[in-house]
């Protein structure tokens, strides 16, 4: 394996061992409908996107043991696929290609769980080809241990009339670097990105959501909501691009950060880059403590302050979990509640 240089990031220093080679494995429980064909191979990279940077791109290509191509066939009903990984080795690298054929409809959930004592460098490359008129929702739920690292690069290309929605719930890991990009290539393509994150203890994250409007009448929406507690740190970059040739496009970007105590560090860099005049682009970023009015209201119905805080925090993620079943939502809520109750996070980083 090529010795890879650890990139130097201004706002988030990276530890030395993120590209350590090692056993790479995870057990998986999957529930796949007939109209989604899965092959254990990964076709080429669709394009060399910048994502997290060259080093990360190269590492995932070389180290990946979980290569997968999911082809979603055209259907009338929404095909639901569900993958549940339990990661138990120090390295887990995967390359996933999702081909959403023209007119296909699918909701794919990939969830990662892990015992609190396990340490893993989890590297991920997911690319989506959203063909004409497709309707795809990919949800990635990361519930790694407080020791692990999560490096995820997700890139989607959306053709004419296609709709690709990517929701990421990044709830665990000591260090997370996430880059989600959508390229709206065809007329009336729609891109939707949702990011929900929870940071407690010493956790650190660098999130980047980029939406590229490259064709006329494309629409997009980016929503990032997160909760920060203890001594965590987050950097959020939201990039909304309107390239020349994207007239009558509309794009929105919103970020809300809830800060629970002094000592958290929250950086936001919402950017709007516009090269086309006939567009509407909006972005908003806000940060504040828990809504005092909400707290008071819930406590006035007999809930303790802690429970009230928990309820508000869980409520903030509810928007992200709309498409999930009641049971799944409940189990994620339980996981979050447990994570919130832990006083100290053990982390190597």
């Amino acid at each position: 394996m090529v010795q890879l240089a650890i990139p130097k990031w201004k706002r988030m220093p990276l530890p030395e061992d993120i590209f350590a080679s090692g056993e790479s494995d995870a057990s998986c429980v999957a529930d796949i409908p007939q109209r989604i064909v899965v092959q254990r191979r990964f076709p080429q990279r669709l394009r060399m996107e910048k994502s997290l940077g060259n080093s990360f791109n190269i590492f995932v290509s070389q180290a990946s043991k979980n290569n997968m191509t999911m082809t979603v066939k055209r259907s009338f009903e929404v095909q639901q696929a569900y993958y549940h990984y339990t990661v138990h080795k120090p390295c887990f690298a995967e390359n996933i290609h999702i081909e959403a054929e023209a007119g296909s409809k699918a909701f794919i959930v990939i969830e990662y769980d892990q015992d609190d004592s396990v340490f893993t460098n989890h590297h991920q490359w997911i690319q989506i080809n959203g063909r004409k008129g497709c309707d795809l929702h990919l949800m990635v739920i990361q519930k790694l241990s407080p020791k692990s690292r999560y490096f995820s690069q997700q890139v989607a290309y959306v053709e004419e009339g296609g709709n690709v929605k990517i929701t990421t719930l990044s709830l665990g890991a000591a260090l997370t670097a996430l880059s989600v990009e959508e390229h709206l290539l065809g007329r009336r393509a729609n891109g939707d990105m949702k990011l929900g994150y929870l940071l407690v203890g010493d956790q650190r994250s660098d999130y980047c959501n980029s939406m590229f409007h490259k064709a006329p009448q494309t629409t997009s929406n980016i929503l990032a909501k997160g909760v920060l507690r203890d001594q965590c740190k987050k950097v959020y970059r939201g990039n909304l691009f309107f390239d020349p040739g994207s007239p009558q496009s509309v794009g929105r970007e919103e970020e809300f950060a809830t800060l629970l105590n002094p000592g958290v560090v929250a950086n936001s860099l919402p950017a709007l880059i516009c090269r086309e005049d006939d567009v509407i682009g909006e972005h908003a970023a806000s940060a504040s403590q828990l809504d005092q009015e909400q707290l008071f209201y819930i406590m006035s119905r007999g809930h303790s302050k802690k429970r009230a805080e928990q309820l508000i925090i869980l409520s903030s993620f509810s928007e992200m979990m709309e498409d999930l079943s009641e049971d799944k939502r409940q189990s994620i809520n339980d996981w979050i509640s447990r994570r919130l109750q832990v006083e100290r996070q053990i982390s190597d980083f």
Partner: protein
Amino acid sequence: MLLNIKNLVATVEDTEILKGVDLTVGLGEVHVIMGPNGAGKSTLANVLMGHPKYQVKDGAVEFNGEDLLDMDVDERAKKGIFMSFQHPQEIPGVALANFIRTAKREITEQKVNLLEFSKELVSKLNQLNMKQEYMDRSLNQGFSGGEKKKSEIVQMAMLKPKLAILDETDSGLDIDAIKVVYEEIQNMAQKDNSIILITHYSRILDFVKPDAIHVLKDGKIVATGDRSLADRIEAEGYDIFN
């Protein structure tokens, strides 16, 4: 004596709003508080419930013989105080039924029988002309102003507080809604529950028979009386108390 307020002085951001309020409410009594805008009516309600943005500078409040001001918000709820908010909060992802059931469990510190609870809730929703599906909807999210107010009354009816403080519950409701809401209120008062109704409109007196009507003006209770007091206000306005 359920509630005894003596010389209550309260400020918000260094501005004094309540300037020495005295009020007593007995078991099973209905008290109406009227007054001009800015008099401090909502402030009084919020201070009794324990809103952190208000600071109590002087005075005492006894609830069932205990010092109320010493208690945190949720403690006061557990003691049996309920406030119906003027602007109820939206909590997405938390279903109305679940919220009320959990609250009931916190307050009574007992398990809640699911079947009984659901039956009662459905019946209350019916009484207030609210569709059953509201049970599963996210608390107050997407509810109209009137529906939010009714949702507050449903919560009150299910939690059965010893003292319910209703802050301008009638504003935003049409005449039919006012009728059913106040029927429920009167219902509650017939048992040993007490009610403090804060309102602008003397119209509600057509539906509720109060034990006393108080006028709160410039942070103090300036008059106490019966229905005739309300009629005078209707005819002559609040300036008569200058």
